[in-house]
C-alpha cells in the first residue's frame, strides 16, 4: 500500500451513478412487470377487502367491535340514533325529519360544524342499517352497520362501514388527520364510545376539560 491515497475514479460520482442506476432499475422493474394472473380472494373479511381495493378519491372507514350485549339490544340502541349526541363527542345534534330522513350536525375538520341530511336506505332489524347523504349535502357519504352474533357467547359484533368524498381530496384528508378531525378517526372513536356506553353505561373520560366531560353532565 502506498502512502498516497489516489482514487483512480472520482468516487462520489461513481457512488451517485450506481445509486441512480439502481433506483431506475427498480422503478422500471416495478412498472414493467408482467401482469400476474388474478389471485383468488381467499377468506379476507369484507371491510379489510374493501379497504385493500380502495382508490385515491374515495375514502373508506371500516371498523368492527364486539359489544357484550344481545344483538337485539345493540340494534335497538343504534337504531335510536337520536341518543347519539349523549355519548358521541362529535355528533352535536340529530333531528328526525320523516320516516327515512334525519338531519345531523357533526364536528368537521377545521373546528366548524357541518349539517347533513341523511336518508336511511335499508333497515333490517337486528341485522343491518344503511344510509346515505342526500344528493345536495355538503359532503357526500354513505355507510352501513351490520350486526351479527359474536362467537362463543361474546355478544354482538358491529361492523361499521363508512365511505365519503373528502372535500379537499387527499390533501384535505391528510390535514384533517393531522388535527384528529378526520372522519376515519372520528368514526373509530364514536364506535368505541358506543361500545363503552352499551357495556358500562358511561363514556370513559379522564379530564374535566374535554368536551366529553360536558356530555356526562
Amino acid at each position, binding site marked *: 500500500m502506498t502512502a498516497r491515497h489516489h482514487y483512480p475514479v472520482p468516487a462520489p460520482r461513481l457512488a451517485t451513478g450506481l445509486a441512480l442506476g439502481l433506483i431506475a432499475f427498480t422503478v422500471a422493474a416495478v412498472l414493467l412487470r408482467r401482469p400476474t394472473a388474478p389471485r383468488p380472494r381467499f377468506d379476507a373479511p369484507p371491510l379489510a377487502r374493501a379497504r385493500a381495493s380502495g382508490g385515491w378519491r374515495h375514502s373508506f372507514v371500516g371498523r368492527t367491535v*364486539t359489544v*357484550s350485549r344481545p344483538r337485539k339490544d345493540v340494534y335497538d340502541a343504534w337504531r335510536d340514533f337520536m341518543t347519539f349526541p349523549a355519548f358521541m*363527542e362529535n355528533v352535536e345534534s340529530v333531528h328526525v325529519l320523516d320516516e327515512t330522513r334525519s338531519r345531523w350536525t357533526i364536528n368537521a375538520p377545521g373546528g366548524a360544524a357541518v349539517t347533513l341530511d341523511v336518508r336511511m336506505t335499508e333497515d333490517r332489524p337486528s341485522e343491518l342499517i344503511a344510509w346515505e347523504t342526500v344528493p345536495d349535502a355538503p359532503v357526500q357519504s354513505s355507510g352501513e352497520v351490520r350486526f351479527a352474533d359474536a362467537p362463543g357467547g*361474546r*355478544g354482538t359484533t358491529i361492523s361499521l362501514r363508512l365511505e365519503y368524498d373528502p372535500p379537499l381530496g387527499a390533501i384535505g384528508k391528510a390535514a384533517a388527520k393531522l388535527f*384528529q378531525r378526520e372522519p376515519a*378517526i372520528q368514526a*373509530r*372513536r*364514536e364506535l*368505541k*364510545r358506543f*361500545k*363503552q356506553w352499551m*357495556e*358500562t*353505561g*358511561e*363514556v*370513559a*373520560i*379522564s*379530564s*374535566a376539560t*374535554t368536551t*366529553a*366531560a360536558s356530555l*356526562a353532565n
Partner: protein
Amino acid sequence: MRALTWHGKKDVRVDTVDDPSILNSRDAIIKVTSTAICGSDLHLYDGVIPTMQAGDILGHEFMGEVVEVGSKAGTLKKGDRVVVPFVIACGSCFFCNKQQFSACDNSNPAEKADMSETLYGQQMSGLFGYSHLTGGYPGGQAEFVRVPFADVGPIIVDDDLDDDEVLFLSDILPTGWMAASNCEIEEGDTVAVWGCGPVGLFAIQSALIMGAAQVIAIDHYPHRLELARQLGAKALDFEQVDIHEALLEMTGGIGPDAVIDAVGLESHGFALDNLYDYAKQTLMLETGRPHALRQALFSCRKGGRVSIPGVYGGFVDKFPIGALMEKGLTVRTGQTHVHRYLPELLERIRERKIDTTFLISHRLPLEQAAEGYRMFANEQNETTKVVLKPEWEKTNGQ
C-alpha cells in the same frame, strides 16, 4: 389541592391544582391517606415513557377514605376506607369477564386510546397517573383523586390494619404475586429473580409461599440483597460473580426452572450489551435496555418459564429470540390483573401470612415528594420504598 406533578425529565414538583370532581355516575372521590412512589414512576421521572404532559399528576399506588360517590358507585359509601387498584377496569367487557382486568377495553378514553392502539395493535386499558397512553388519568400522589368504576375497583379494608400493611395491595404486592404465579411453580423448583426492588421482593416472598424449593435473588445493592435474604432467598451480587455460572452450579447444571425479570426497561450495570443499549437510547434509536431480561432468558433452563413483571414500553435490540425458541421457553407477562388477586391477598395479610411493611424505608409528607423521587432514583441502596402521607401536611409532619 396539592399534588405531585410532572414537568419534564427529572423534574417533578408539588403544585396546587384543581380538586377532582365526579364526572361519571360510577365515580368516587378518595381523600388519599397514603400513596407510594413506584419503580415504574421512575421511568416517568427519567423521561423514557412518551405522551407525558407538563402538569400531569403522578401516582398509581394509593389508598384512603371515600369522600364523595356518584349515583351508581355500587355499595361504596362516604367514609369507607379503601385501597384502589392501579388498573382501571369496567368489570363488564370481554377482558374483564375473563379476569384479564389490566386489558379492560372500556377504561381508556376513546380520544386517547388511538395512541396505544397504533403502538401495540390494540388499545391499552386506563391506568392512574401513567401518561396519556393509558388515558391521562390524574394519579394519586395528591390529596384527592377521582376513581372511575368505583363499584369495581376499590376494596374496603378493615380498620385494624394500618395503611402501611395494606397500601401495596394497590399494585406491587399483586404484581409480585402474579409474577410468581406466572412461574407455574412445581415441587422442587428453583426460581431466579432479577431485581430486588419492591416487586422483586414481593415476587420472592410469593414464590416461597407457592412452594418453590429455592429462590435466588440477583441485584447489586447490598441492602436490597439483604432484604431478599431475610425473606428466605439466596442472594447473588452480579458485580461479584458471573450469574449464569452461579445459577448453573446452584441448580445441578440444569438452570433455574423459572426466571422473573423484575427489572424492566432501565437495566443497570456496565455489561457490554447494556452500554450498547444506553448508547442507542441516548440516540433515541431504542426505547429499552433489556440487559436483565437477556440474562434471564440465557439462564433459564430448557423448557422453563419466563415471567416478566418488569415494565417495557417500545422496542429493544438484540432480543435473543433464538435462545427462547431453541430452549422451548414459555413467556408470561403483562400489567397486573390486580382485581383478580385482591381478596386472597387481603386475607393473607389479615392472617399475618404476608408482611408488606418490611420494605418501606421512608415515610414523607406529600410536600417532600420531589425529594422522595430523587432518593428513590439515586440512592437505591438505602431507599427501598417511599410512602407519601398527604395528611401529614395538616399536622405539620407528625
